[in-house]
């Protein structure tokens, strides 16, 4: 198993390298001179030269790329152009608020949509199932921005149930500000998730073990929420694991709309101010997360189904 994990992790190295090449090319070669973008058009030659020297931008391109690789290997991305703090600090600040927004939303969305999907799959083809699926598709067809704008207007302005905007860093004080964005995130995710889980679960409910369970005299809730759920765990866990990188990246739209200082907002600010050290570190962080969650998902498969390990 350890060898399997190591081999899979090794496969991730070319992907992270590929990501580094693409970001490097996109922002350095095609995107214009980062220093000019950051200092603006009215920079004096001295200022430009000073900043270029400080960040090693006067070196040939391949040297700069090698320097970038070294940054990736050591996970030390230097100082932000804008705040002059270590990049790690800038990113670390955003992680907490982003996770506080996305983790509860993922938990609630998964529990709710799996439950709805179990019920829909049980009544598959019948009116209840059909109405639930129509509702899910309709929910998927509404723009994310419309959910946010209308949600904020109705639930924080028209009926002031929630805070309309803002954030407080305290471990307790943050929740009143986060509850509406979390609610919106749940509503947005429910449509997609319910549909996905329903089709995964619908394949289970016709199987023999379900008939056996009913024949033993078990009630429907027990059959659905114990027997069927256990057998549908593979697609459920896979889907939850795939969303892990997105937990850390937060939600750019929700964060900027509600003024939550998460990583989505950090990225937006970095793009606005051409803060390249932050953009580079962010991209690598996300791609590493992608690779690691992919490996973890494969390991999970191999653990559930030992036949996979051998191939």
């Amino acid at each position, binding site marked *: 198993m350890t060898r399997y994990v190591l081999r899979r992790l090794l496969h991730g190295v070319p992907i992270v390298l590929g990501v580094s090449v693409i*970001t490097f090319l996109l922002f350095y070669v095609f995107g214009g001179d980062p220093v000019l973008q950051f200092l603006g058009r009215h920079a004096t030659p001295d200022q430009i030269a000073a900043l270029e020297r400080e960040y090693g931008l006067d070196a040939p391109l391949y040297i700069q790329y090698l320097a970038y690789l070294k940054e990736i290997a050591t996970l030390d991305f230097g100082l932000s152009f804008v705040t002059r703090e270590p990049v790690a600090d800038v990113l670390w600040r955003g992680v907490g608020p982003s996770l506080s927004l996305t983790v509860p939303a993922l938990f609630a969305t998964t529990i709710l949509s799996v439950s709805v999907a179990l019920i829909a799959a049980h009544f598959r083809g019948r009116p209840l199932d059909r109405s639930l699926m129509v509702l899910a598709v309709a929910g998927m*067809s509404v723009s994310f921005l419309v959910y946010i*704008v209308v949600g904020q207007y109705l639930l924080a302005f028209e009926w002031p149930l929630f805070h309309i905007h803002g954030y407080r860093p305290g471990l307790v004080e943050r929740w009143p500000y986060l509850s509406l964005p979390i609610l919106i995130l749940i509503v947005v995710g429910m449509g997609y998730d319910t549909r996905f889980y329903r089709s995964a679960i619908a394949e289970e409910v016709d199987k023999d073990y379900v008939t056996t369970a009913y024949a033993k005299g078990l009630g429907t809730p027990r059959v659905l929420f114990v027997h069927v759920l256990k057998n549908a765990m593979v697609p459920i866990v896979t889907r939850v694991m795939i969303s892990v990188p997105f937990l850390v990246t937060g939600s750019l739209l929700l964060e900027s709309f509600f003024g939550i200082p998460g990583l989505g907002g950090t990225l937006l600010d970095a793009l606005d101010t051409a803060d390249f050290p932050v953009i580079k570190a962010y991209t690598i962080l996300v791609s590493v997360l992608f690779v690691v969650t992919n490996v973890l998902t494969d390991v999970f498969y191999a653990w559930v189904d030992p036949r996979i390990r051998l191939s």
Partner: protein
Amino acid sequence: MIARAVTDRLRRDRGALVGLAIIAVYAAVALLVTSGLVATDVDARVGEGFLEPGPGHWLGTDRQGRDILGRVLYATKIAFSVGLVTATFSVTLGTALGAIAGYFGGKVDAAIVWLYSTVQSIPSILLLIAIAYIAGRGLFGVYLAFSATFWVAPCRVVRGEAVKVREAQYVEAARALGYGPFRILLWHVVPNTLHLSLVSFALAFVGAIKSEVILSYLGLGVQGEPSWGTMINQSRGELINGFFWQIGAASVAMFVLVLAFNVFADALQDALDPRAT
């Protein structure tokens, strides 16, 4: 005939027919706008700003006193051009790469899988912003950004199917007849993965329309012309003043088209599913 069976099955699906009819109506509007018959002067002032619906401005007017109905209709054209261009490019590219990867296997496959895994590991919003930024604000940047990111999904599914098709007897027969790999790809592999490409096309279309709203929010969307995204984005602050005609009109217009596409894509998937035969 497979095509016959599929159309028969689609014809029996009432949801699919309604979805298709709605898409046709939107396409007709887009064509009318393109040919200059409808919504000709979307920037003209037709009255005061923020008017409620009335004669001459049946869905009210926006801040600058422009007719919201005309702008919503015009935006249909933008939605179709973004959807069609993006879906055509991304699905063609994805299908080609996916079929090549799946059919040839080996190093070619590894290279293509590496390419899409890499693109997939970059946060899509970052890729979209970077490309839209480099290509310049406006429609061209939107096309390019979406095409460069949306090809991954069709590529993955087509590759998966091509791996199976490669082993099929008809492909083996074609090889035995001495056909070259490109003839086999074009005439035997691609047609047999086409059902997946078709569904991907509908999904890419929907994805493009929905993502356009996000790019507009970031100021990188369509410039100088009304799109549903720019309209929704403009009217963010209007709700608080009790004016919801603009956001309502743009959101509903978009919702109905996206819903129609989603329903149609579902029906298509069911009708094309070989397991159902």
